[in-house]
């Protein structure tokens, strides 16, 4: 360990990254300084720029450097169907696999009264305005299958139902390739409730 306070500060800063403990932070810092100063400089530059320029799409709240993100701005997408998700990462996942052609609304979390997260913190007032505008015909609720995710889906479904808008919930259940014996009972009960006729 050197006594250099700047190095120690860098190591400490790197620990804000997920999955980075003191050991790996130290490895990263030495790697960048010893072998890849150019990469480090690019990283510093990109980080600063991203922090300054990336905000939230004013339509769907996902992370975006534009006022309105590319998905919301895409005329080829069905603006009358909104898929509600908890995080921008969920948008990425659905975009990659599902062949979904509607737009999104990103909550940036879920209802969690014990953490002080209520409807306003999730931007549900913005969603309510969208629903009131009369363009939306269907909400697809793709929040996580946790109790908070379920409560959030229920709350938004009620918002839709009072306005006569259809709300659907994505199915949750047994993972493909999984064995029933190893699935916990909550998952299994979801799978049972969401069963479909063959």
């Amino acid at each position, binding site marked *: 360990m050197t006594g250099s306070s700047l190095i120690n500060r860098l190591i400490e800063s790197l620990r804000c990254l997920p999955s980075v403990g003191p050991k790996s932070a130290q490895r990263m810092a030495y790697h960048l300084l010893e072998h890849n100063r150019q990469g480090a400089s690019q990283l510093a530059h990109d980080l600063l720029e991203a922090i300054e320029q990336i905000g939230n799409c004013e339509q769907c709240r996902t992370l975006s450097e534009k006022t309105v993100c590319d998905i919301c701005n895409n005329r080829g997408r069905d603006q009358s169907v909104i898929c509600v998700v908890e995080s921008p990462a969920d948008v990425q996942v659905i975009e990659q696999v599902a062949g979904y052609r509607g737009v999104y609304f990103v909550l940036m979390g879920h209802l969690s009264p014990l953490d002080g997260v209520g*409807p306003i913190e999730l931007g549900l007032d913005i969603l309510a305005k969208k629903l009131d505008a009369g363009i939306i015909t269907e909400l697809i609720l793709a929040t996580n299958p946790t109790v908070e995710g379920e409560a959030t889906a229920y709350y938004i479904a009620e918002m839709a139902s009072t306005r006569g808008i259809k709300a659907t919930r994505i199915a949750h259940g047994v993972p493909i390739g999984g064995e029933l014996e190893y699935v916990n009972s909550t998952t299994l009960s979801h799978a049972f409730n969401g069963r479909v006729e063959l």
Partner: protein
Amino acid sequence: MMSGPCTALVTAMISSHKVNLELAYILHSRPYRDTSLLVDIFSRTHGRIGAVAKGAKQAKSKFNGLLQPFGLLMLSWSGKGDLMTLTDAEQPQAALDINGSQLISGFYLNELLTRLLQRHDPHQILFDIYHETLCILVKDEHLEAVLRRFEFYLLQETGYGLVLDHDVETGEAIQTEACYCYYIERGPVKIDKTSDQQQGVLINGQTLLAIKDGSLVEALHLKQAKQLMRAVIAHQLGDKPLRSRELAMQKVL
């Protein structure tokens, strides 16, 4: 007589707890570091416990998917001080199928427990009432009465029990036909139906007795009971209101 080192060993064993498969519910969990969870546990014999469940968010974790509110669990933990380490979790029975507005009521119960119970204070009776309340909640029957019953026991078990059987000024038994003003931290005082607005909650004698007997049925009684509980609980909670009430669409909380 115990010798010195032996006493020290015993003390160490007491302060460093090991609890094995104890009946418990998760009141709340939140992410901790990358893969772990911090859980707020309501256990039957040890009361409210804070614990860390290491690696609980990893797909292969034995805790994966189990550490959610509203499912009866058997939990093992060890450690000392305010933060225990969860070592094992089992689900002794099928998880409750709790949905929709039931979840909101459930959050309300959990918020009350986390706000009003001190850590490490055992509350066995309350634990059993909580368990029963959840079981009735999922049947969607007598929802309001069930919530009021829970609140009644919660207040009683945390030392703020309501006075429901006598007038605190005269000492006379509560009369079904009389009208009372319930002063928080004191109790009910009989009033004239014509008297001015009082600094308390107006409530019928019949409602007071129905809360006591757990026989709230009529709409007026339910409404008055809710007003009373709200006022008393708000008094205990201080300035920070309950967030779960914001989510209630059925006005039952």
